[in-house]
Every structure is written in structure tokens, then in C-alpha cells.
């Protein structure tokens, strides 16, 4: 299992360090936060390949961290003889016996540490030292990657050319289907890992024999006829035969079928599901790394649920999963406890989320926790009417919508404030939480969640009991019945409080759209000021 990941100089990562969870890692972050880059980097060091191709084929100047490259160019232009930018990705593994071949102290840890590990470096090729020197006289931000080389090594300082067998890695990328046969490099690797060497040899041999029998059978008469044609350059006989070169090996013709339908012809969702099942359903005596990008893509809600429970049941003791997702459903379902939050080239693991809270959200996977995770500042309100009214009041005070100020107003819709606040606290978010007093003394309500509150960071706002038990009576209290009737367009014949109770959302919408001034309830005003000071 990977115990630590260190990335230097790769794309957005200048110096990145992460200690991933032992089993499951749910990588979440805004767009451009480096989720895919992290996955790519891990795969690069584990398999020596990017998108199934060798580093040397894929290497381009944009792999290098722009800040580091700019720094280098600037310093060289100023006459400083600084070294060329390099990329290094290091994966540290736990000290298992079967990984000892990779064990050593050739890594960047200080003080010296020996453990199994693997590193991928992209560095200037010393054979081209002169060319590099020439180039550096007039450097540009586009590095001359032609003079670079990749160096894939174990921590024991021995060069690696093919993936060590203990590091079985399955990469499932449901975003795109890469090859026309549907069997891309990754799937071939996964299938390959399922076949014993003897089985592979057997398939290969049989395939060759089948091809050979074509030549002796159906093609025989054809060949007798065209053999008499003298069409070739030097009058040598021409014949048709099955191509037996390695280019046409069985792997391109033998493909998985689902319910007798070729893999490539089945739906993309089905393809993703099959890849995941194949990848995870391996002998658990190997260190297995399974990397899944955005499993929610191409899947209906029902299929996603099926897939996630399959992933859960297949996850073995020895498997480490890395999953990126944009879906709160995936996040909640697989467990918020495994969250890895990416942002600005850094990652945070969310440590110590209580089991209680994790399973609470697992049972309510539909809730949009990802919004909590990704927001800068959060306002937690009880329901949609609170949300609408708060947005209006916020705009009145600050002249902007909360969203424009990086504030996400989230309606809890009956979810427990305690669990939401715990999640916010573990993510260290700035939160204003608003709730009705429901006739209970605010002091008492506050003590229930006191552990998750923190002055100036996470505060709870509750109206006074005498000003009304919920939002609606509070609004009546602060604005007076007459003004509110006008705003809500409720005539004198109707009972205002009954109307407001019945038409909560409609009332809130009318308030939001009203041209008239609205006096905010005290607690809501305080919350709006607190969250955007």
C-alpha cells in the first residue's frame, strides 16, 4: 500500500506531499484543483506509463511546473547557473516482505529512511549536456524535452523497465473510451493479470493454429489459382495467408463479451462497470492499486448504486483504491471518512470524522455534501424558505449575491445540524448556521452543538423565543403585520400566520422579489454580517 506520495515539479504540483488512506481515497476538488493530475502522477510512477503510453512518447514541455520553469528562466537570464527543472514522483510503500526488492534509502526523505518504494524522474540527459548548455544561453519557458530522459527506479536504486509484478495496478477511466475495440491498454493489462501464463500461452497457440488452419482450408483453392498469376515484382508466387506476425496477436481479436455482446458494443456505463469488477476481483495476496476516475460518468443513478456496492464488496484487504468524483452521491456512499480534498496544489485528508457522521451520510447519500466540501464559506439554513429569505437579506446588506462572495447557502432539509457542523469543523470551514428556536431557549440549543462551534469561525445564530419560534413569525415581528401583508400580497381577510405557514416557499419567493424594504430578523442580520464581514 502507498503510505506516502511526493510529487515535485509535475504540472500544478511544485512540492506536493500526501499520506493517503490505507484502503479508500475519495479525491474531491474543484475543477483545475489537480485531481486528475494526482491520479496521473500515481499511475506514472506505478506503471511507467501515461494513458497507456510510455513516458518518452508522451513527455511534453507542459508537464513541468510553470512556476519552477519561469523561476529557472528568470534566474538563467540573470546569469545564475541554476539547475534545469526536474520532475520527480515518489511512491513510498509499506514495509511488506514481498515488496523488499524495492526497498532502499534512495528517496528524498530527510532524515534517511529506507522502505520499499518507486520513483519516476524526468531529468536532463547527461549525454546532451552540451546541447542543454547551448539552449540555456537563451532560455524560453518551453523546455527542450528532447534532451530530457525518464528514469524509473526503485528505492534500492535499480532501474525498472517493466512494472514489478507485486504492483498490480488497474486504471479505470470512464471519461473516454480510447480505442475502437473498447479494449484499451488499461483493460488489456487488467485482463492480462487475470490470466495465468500457461493460459495465455495456450490461447496464443490455439489462436495461431486456428489461423494456420484457415490457410490450409478455405484459402487453399484460392492460393492454387492466384499462385499462377505472375503479378509480383520478381515473378515470385503470391498467396493469401493469415498474418502470423505479432502485430496480429490474439489480444486484438479475443475480447471480452457481455452477454454475448462484444465489450465495445455494450454501453459505456456497462464497460466502466465491467472494468471495475475485473480490476478489483483479483487475488488479494497482491498489492493492488485500483484507480477509478469519476465512476459516476455514463451511469444512471441505479447503475451507479449497483456499481458502488460492487466496489465496496470487492475491496479486499490488500487493495488501495483511488477514486476521483464530482458526485456527492459517490462521496457519501463510499464514506466521507476517506475524503481527500484537493485545492491549489495541496491535499488535505479529513481526519477523525466520527463513524456516526460517516454512516449518517452513507444512509442519506442524496445529500449534497460535496457543496460543503468545496465551498469556501457556508451558510447552513433549515429549509428552502430560509435559504431564499437569507439570500435576499444578504443582497440587501452587501449588494451582491452570496454566491458572488464565495458563500454557499445550503439548506439542510431536515438533516441533523450536528452532523453537518461536524463535517464543516473537520474541513475547517467558515460557517454561519441558522436555525429556528422552536420555542426552546437558544442557550440550550447551542450547547448541543457547542463542540463544533468556534468563535469567529463557526457560529450558530438563533432568534429569540419571544420574537417568534420560526422564520415566519420572526418576519412578522420585525416588519409588522401590515407591511408584510403588503409584501406578500395577502389581504386582510386571510389569517397571515396560517397563510405563511402553509405557503412557506411561495411567501419566501414573494419576499425575494419584493421591491419594498424588508427588516431582517435580528439573528439573520447577524449571520449575514458575520459570514461576509
Amino acid at each position, binding site marked *: 500500500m502507498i503510505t506516502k506520495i511526493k510529487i515535485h515539479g509535475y504540472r500544478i504540483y511544485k512540492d506536493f506531499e500526501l499520506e493517503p488512506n490505507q484502503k479508500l481515497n475519495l479525491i474531491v476538488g474543484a475543477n483545475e484543483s489537480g485531481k486528475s493530475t494526482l491520479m496521473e502522477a500515481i499511475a506514472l510512477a506505478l506503471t511507467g506509463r501515461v494513458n497507456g503510453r510510455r513516458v518518452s512518447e508522451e513527455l511534453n514541455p507542459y508537464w513541468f511546473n510553470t512556476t519552477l520553469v519561469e523561476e529557472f528562466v528568470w534566474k538563467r537570464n540573470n546569469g545564475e547557473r541554476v539547475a534545469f527543472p526536474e520532475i520527480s514522483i515518489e511512491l513510498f510503500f509499506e514495509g511488506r*516482505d*514481498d515488496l*523488499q*526488492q524495492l*526497498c*532502499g*534509502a*534512495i528517496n528524498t526523505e*530527510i*532524515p*534517511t529512511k*529506507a522502505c520499499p518504494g518507486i520513483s519516476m524522474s524526468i531529468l536532463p540527459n547527461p549525454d546532451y549536456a552540451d546541447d542543454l548548455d547551448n539552449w540555456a544561453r537563451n532560455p524560453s519557458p518551453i523546455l527542450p524535452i528532447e534532451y530530457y530522459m525518464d528514469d524509473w527506479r526503485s*528505492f*534500492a*536504486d*535499480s532501474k525498472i523497465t517493466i512494472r514489478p509484478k507485486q504492483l498490480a495496478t488497474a486504471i479505470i477511466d470512464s471519461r473516454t473510451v480510447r480505442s475502437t475495440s473498447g479494449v484499451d491498454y488499461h483493460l488489456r493489462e487488467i485482463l492480462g493479470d487475470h490470466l495465468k501464463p500457461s493460459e495465455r500461452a495456450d490461447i496464443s497457440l490455439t489462436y495461431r493454429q486456428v489461423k494456420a488452419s484457415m490457410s490450409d482450408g478455405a484459402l487453399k483453392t484460392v492460393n492454387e489459382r492466384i499462385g499462377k498469376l505472375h503479378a509480383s515484382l520478381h515473378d515470385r508466387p503470391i498467396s493469401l495467408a493469415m498474418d502470423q506476425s505479432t502485430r496480429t496477436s490474439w489480444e486484438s481479436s479475443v475480447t471480452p463479451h457481455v452477454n454475448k455482446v462484444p465489450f465495445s458494443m455494450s454501453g459505456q456505463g456497462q464497460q466502466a462497470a465491467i472494468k471495475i469488477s475485473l480490476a478489483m476481483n483479483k487475488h488479494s495476496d497482491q498489492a493492488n492499486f485500483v484507480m477509478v476516475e469519476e465512476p459516476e460518468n455514463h451511469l444512471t443513478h441505479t447503475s451507479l448504486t449497483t456499481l458502488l456496492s460492487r466496489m465496496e464488496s470487492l475491496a479486499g484487504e490488500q487493495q488501495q483504491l483511488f477514486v476521483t468524483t464530482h458526485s456527492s452521491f459517490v462521496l457519501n456512499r463510499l464514506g466521507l471518512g476517506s475524503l481527500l480534498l484537493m485545492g491549489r496544489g495541496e491535499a488535505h485528508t479529513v481526519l477523525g470524522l466520527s463513524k456516526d457522521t460517516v454512516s449518517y451520510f452513507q444512509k442519506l447519500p442524496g445529500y449534497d455534501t460535496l457543496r460543503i466540501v468545496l465551498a469556501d464559506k457556508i451558510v447552513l439554513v433549515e429549509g428552502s424558505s430560509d435559504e431564499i429569505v437569507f439570500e435576499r437579506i444578504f443582497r440587501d446588506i452587501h449588494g451582491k449575491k452570496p454566491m458572488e462572495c464565495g458563500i454557499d447557502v445550503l439548506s439542510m432539509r431536515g438533516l441533523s445540524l450536528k452532523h453537518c457542523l461536524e463535517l464543516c469543523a473537520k474541513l475547517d470551514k467558515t460557517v454561519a448556521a441558522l436555525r429556528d428556536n422552536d420555542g426552546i431557549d437558544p442557550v440550550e440549543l447551542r450547547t448541543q452543538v457547542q463542540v463544533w462551534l468556534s468563535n469567529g469561525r463557526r457560529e450558530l445564530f438563533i432568534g429569540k423565543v419571544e420574537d417568534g419560534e420560526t422564520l415566519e413569525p420572526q418576519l412578522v415581528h420585525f416588519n409588522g403585520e401590515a407591511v408584510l401583508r403588503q409584501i406578500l400580497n395577502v389581504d386582510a381577510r386571510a389569517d397571515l400566520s396560517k397563510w405563511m405557514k402553509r405557503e412557506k416557499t411561495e411567501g419566501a419567493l414573494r419576499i425575494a422579489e419584493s421591491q419594498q424594504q424588508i427588516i431582517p430578523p435580528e439573528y439573520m442580520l447577524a449571520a449575514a454580517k458575520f459570514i461576509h464581514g
Partner: protein
Amino acid sequence: MANYLTLAVAGSRKTQGIVEHCASLPHDRRALVVTYTQTNQAELRDRLSTYPGDHPDIRVMGWFTFLLRDFARPFLPFIFPGKRVRGFNFEGRPHRMAKGLKRFLDLNEAVYSCELGRLAHELVEASKGVLLHRIECIYDEILIDEVQDLSGHDWEIIDVLLNSSLDVRMVGDIRQSVLATNPRSQMNKKYAYAEAINWFREREARGVLEIIENATTWRCHPDIAAFSDTIFDSSWSFPRTESRNKTVTGHEGVFLVRHEHLDEYIAQFDPQCLRSSANSGKDFDLDYLNFGLAKGMEYRRVLIVPTDGIVEFIQSGNHLGPKPAANFYVAVTRAAQSVAIVLPDAGTSKLPFWEP
């Protein structure tokens, strides 16, 4: 845990023994075969690939390669943080007074072959068990051929291996130790050359090692075998060599040859001429091979131009010191059928003169 040393005489098919042992191992046994000389490595690799060719986890490595791959390269930072071994310097020697990194690595950070054993041994300690644990995990068994050729700190490393969980099997002929891995090392001087036998016997007495004597030669004629046994005095307590050579050519055994018969002898028998070094045997213009280079070779007949020490040994029975004795032993045991020694006067020796 089970450690064995097979002490074998020249011509006893030591290498074949290793090959046969490898073939008898379970299919998935991870064995490392280590040897000192290049020729021996190539020979072993060749024979292992044909005989027990279906064992995927048997690997052949030179002693230096073993120390580089499994000791120095992975763990150098434990003594010199942030440093890497970037090459191997076979010829070079560090400055006598060199300290720290400079003692072990040259300017290009290539490790000196002569200091590699010392470095490797120090890393065993410095890594606090990680190094040894790694070796214990990646191999089940280590076989060391030509163990008599190791010297200096190499012995410390053998000690580490003997006390590990690995099975260690060593094969060697103590009487043939004419090479030394570090010509300057003071370490373990008392074990140098043929005195290595005592080192092993100490370990046998402590119960970490079992010594098996193999005194059967398939090469040397019984008379040659008997003569080779006289080269070391009885205090070494080497066992008597048994010969399985039954070939008869009409000229078998050990002979003395007077200078005036030399040309005739060579013309008649065409022996391989051997001398101790380039400085000896200058009295005759012969197509010589030095003793050291003849190691591992087999010839039908050899002719030896003796050193002063050898002359004295033959004429008056005074034994040679350990190193010249080993050299002479190598020279004598190259021969299958006959050994001729160029000597004008037999002294007290009972060896017969060859006469035309």
C-alpha cells in the same frame, strides 16, 4: 539458517555440484549464486541455463555486483545522507589518508572495488537491520562459489549472512586461495589466504556452520593427488585426496626433469609450462602461463619451473608459507596425467627423474 561449507580439492567438480544443487531445488526457490571471478560467472550462468533452466528465481551474480546491488546502492544514505553510488571503480584506490565519503567513492561517486566490502559491512550496521531484512525477504538461499577468494571485510559479510535466516552454502578449496579482493586491507589479515580454514573451523565449533569435506578428485592421477597432499604440512589437517582418474597413457605421476633433458621432454609430451610470475622462469624461453592465470584450468600435462621456495621444499622437505604453498598447489593440480618439475638435483626427494 542451515549453513554448509563444502571444502573440496582441485578437480572435484565443485561448480557442477552447485549446478546440481540448484537443479534439485524446488521450482520457486529463490537462490542467489555468487562467485568471484568473471569466467566462473559466465560458466555458471551458462550451465545453470541449460541444466536447471526451468528455475526462474535462480540468479548468478559476481561478489561485487551482490555488494553493489543489495548493500551499497540501496543503503548508502545511511552513512552519507543524500548521496548515491553512481558507478564502480575497479582499478582505482582511495588516497591512503582519505576519510569519509572520499574513502569509498571517487570524484565521480563511483565506489572503489577495494573498499566495497568495508562499506557494505558498515551499511549492515548503519541501516539498523533494514538491509538484512531486505536480503532475507528477496532470497531464500545464497550459494557462494570459490569462497576461498574472499578477503578482508568480505568475511564480516559472510558472518552476517551466516547469522541470518537465509540458508548459506559455500564451496571452496582453501588450498587454492591465491586471489584477494583487497590487496591493502588490514582487516582479518589472519584469515587471509589459506588460513581461512581456521576461520571456518571456529564457526563450525560454534555451531553456525557445518563443514563437509570433499576429497575426491576426478582430474588428478593418484600419484599427482598424493604429491599435492604433501604441499601443506600436516598441521593443516587437510584430508587425503582420493583420485578417480584411471586413465593410463604410459607417463603418469610427478617427475623431475634436468635442464639438459628439457627440450626433449617438451618435444615428447607437450606439457603446459607454468611459472609463478612474469619474474620467474627467465632461464628458459618457454610458452609460460602464470600460476594465478592457470586457476580453474585443466591440462593433460604440466611442466613447472620452480621458485627457490619450491626447490627447497622438494630438495629438503621444508614447507612453503601459506601463500606460496597455495600457488604451488594450484600449479600441480592443473595436471591430469603428469607433472614435471625442472630441477638439477633431487636432494632428499624420492621423486623420480625423467630420462629420455
